[in-house]
């Protein structure tokens, strides 16, 4: 799961990592009440699961009611990199001396957690200069290592003590919540030398959800994504008009790439899992039938164990039951492909020997129908 800023900050609070006073809301009525509680000046921050919102205008300062009334609806209704604002966070403005970068992430090649810190924070990680990178094993970060990192950043005295404390708490949070990434950017140094987490980002391991009931309230799933998960599929919805379906994540990604290379715009990425059965394909078509934006379906299945005729009968059943009326461009690799072609002859499903041909067909189809 990718937690929104306000959700990450709820976890920071739980672990006693200092954050500015803030309240989240999803409508202006509640926002007005929050404004009274926080008091001017404050910032309103778009809660979106994507970086770069500052540049996109998703963070606005409000010094008075007029600015609030103007900015709140604007930020609430905006989309950043295709992601709609989920909520608004009203946050007390902080005066600070310096912006630091701090994160812990699961280092996949070294199979341990790695700390990244920098005295030049406040920009996206790619632009963070003078990165201090330290592998810290699988356990919590020790006081000694945290103090060494503090020293490298240039902290001493009380600020160093604060930093060690925050890094240790962040590492405890990372391990206990099974996070792949926890980031505080910026972590700011206040005039009195203490530290405050001004922004937060947390990504947790979805596969550990079953033992983290406390995190499930943060889970964001569309109705279709929830249905897909129930069937054991993975679904990513996008804003194009061609549904991309296949078995196995790698194969679907590959199909997705080739479709995009040829000018097609994917409406979704739908992986029905390594095996393909009549039920799974029928279930996939049921999901797609609920996406209004879809104009055509591109199917790429590597059968192997399952006969393609079984898949073909799923298409026929879907047309017979009036589940779909969309054209399907399919490449079904596996046994009895010729027989499947005959079965599908008088339907809206066209079968191809190669995925390249199926892609050309579907792109032409969508271009024709606009």
């Amino acid at each position: 799961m990718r937690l929104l800023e306000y959700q990450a900050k709820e976890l920071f609070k739980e672990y006693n990592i200092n954050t500015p006073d803030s309240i989240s809301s999803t409508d202006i009525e509640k926002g007005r009440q929050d404004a009274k509680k926080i008091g001017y000046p404050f910032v309103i921050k778009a809660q979106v699961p994507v970086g770069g919102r500052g540049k996109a205008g998703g963070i606005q300062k409000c010094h008075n009611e007029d600015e609030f009334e103007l900015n709140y609806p604007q930020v609430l209704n905006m989309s950043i990199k295709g992601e709609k604002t989920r909520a608004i966070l009203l946050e007390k403005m902080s005066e600070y001396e310096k912006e630091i970068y701090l994160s812990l992430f699961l280092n996949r090649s070294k199979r341990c957690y790695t700390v990244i810190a920098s005295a030049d924070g406040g920009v996206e990680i790619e632009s963070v200069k003078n990165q201090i990178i330290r592998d810290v094993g699988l356990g919590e970060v020790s006081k000694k290592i945290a103090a060494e990192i503090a020293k490298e950043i240039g902290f001493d005295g009380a600020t160093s003590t604060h930093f060690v404390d925050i890094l240790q708490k962040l590492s405890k949070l990372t391990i206990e919540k099974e996070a792949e990434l926890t980031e505080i950017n910026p972590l700011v140094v206040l005039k009195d030398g203490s530290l405050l987490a001004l922004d937060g980002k947390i990504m947790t391991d979805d596969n550990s959800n079953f033992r983290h009931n406390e995190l499930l309230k943060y889970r964001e799933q569309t109705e279709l994504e929830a249905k897909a998960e129930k069937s054991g599929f993975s679904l990513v919805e996008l804003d194009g008009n061609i549904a991309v379906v296949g078995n196995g994540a790698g194969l679907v990604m590959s199909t997705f790439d080739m479709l995009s290379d040829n000018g097609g715009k994917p409406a979704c990425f739908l992986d029905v899992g390594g095996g393909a059965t009549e039920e799974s394909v029928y279930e996939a078509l049921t999901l797609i039938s609920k996406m209004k934006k879809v104009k055509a379906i591109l199917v790429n299945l590597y059968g192997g164990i399952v006969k393609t005729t079984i898949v073909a009968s799923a298409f026929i059943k879907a047309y017979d039951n009036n589940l779909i009326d969309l054209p399907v461009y399919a490449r079904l690799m596996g046994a009895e492909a010729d027989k499947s072609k005959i079965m599908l002859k008088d339907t809206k499903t066209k079968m191809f020997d190669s995925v390249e041909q199926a892609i050309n067909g579907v792109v032409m189809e969508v271009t024709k129908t606009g």
Partner: protein
Amino acid sequence: MLKGDKNKDGTYEKQPVIVQGITGKFGSVHTKLMLEYGTNIVAGVTPGKGGQKFEDVPIYETVTEAVSATGAKISIVFVPAKFFLNAAKEAFEAGIKLLVAIPEHVPVRDTMQAIEIAKQNNAIMVGPNTPGIIIPNLIKIGIMPASPFAEGNIAVLSKSGTLLYEISNSLTTSGFGQIFTLGIGGDPINGTRMIDAFDMIKDKSELDGIVIVGEIGGEAEETLAQHIIDIEFKKPIVAYIAGRKAPREKRMGHAGAIIMGNYGSAESKIAMFSKANIPVAKRPTEVPILLAGKIRKK
């Protein structure tokens, strides 16, 4: 380890294999298919079903019992993700030296613990979320269909299962059979990393070339490319990367297939491969063409 001792007639002694979860929905289907392929499955493990048989294979209560009855050092696991860590621990402590971990959706923390236990016991884990290993015409320890693979001298190492089948099929139809193919798995943390799989086969004298099937997420491809530069490996290598057009910060089916910032992007992997003089195919069917070019130039 997968190839047993050579017999007088030139064939290899078949290595005994245990199946953990042999009576489960998935385990039973694939046990049959592995037996059909000729894999020497000597025992199964399903608690509560010890003493019974499945397809003439004796079932035991525990891995320890199965190991002491058969002497097998290889096991393939089909259990729900939640129970994987216990199954892996049991296997390594019973003396299993190669564990092929099929389950998908194993929490990363459990995988890391399983890797630690493997290390302590001097064992290797492949996966989780792997299709397994196949040496065509010799042994199949996995869930891959048999049809895409043929005997030959090309190694295929892949993060993805179905792309492993797709690309191996494409190689086979172009006359490039395989000496060894292995799926490292689609998870963020793999028992056998891309670089470990590469090191397993790089020194085989019969090896004519290697195909690396990567995808977005992590830095396994970059690490391997750097390793190839460092050791000045000279045999032909071709790569394919899935997910060039995937949106950022979205998990694309595999738990590991996610770009965070620039970490894990296809651009980074392709750039590193081209630094190592490894061509990257744009489509799976382009792989054998690029490989043929590389082999000809040699």
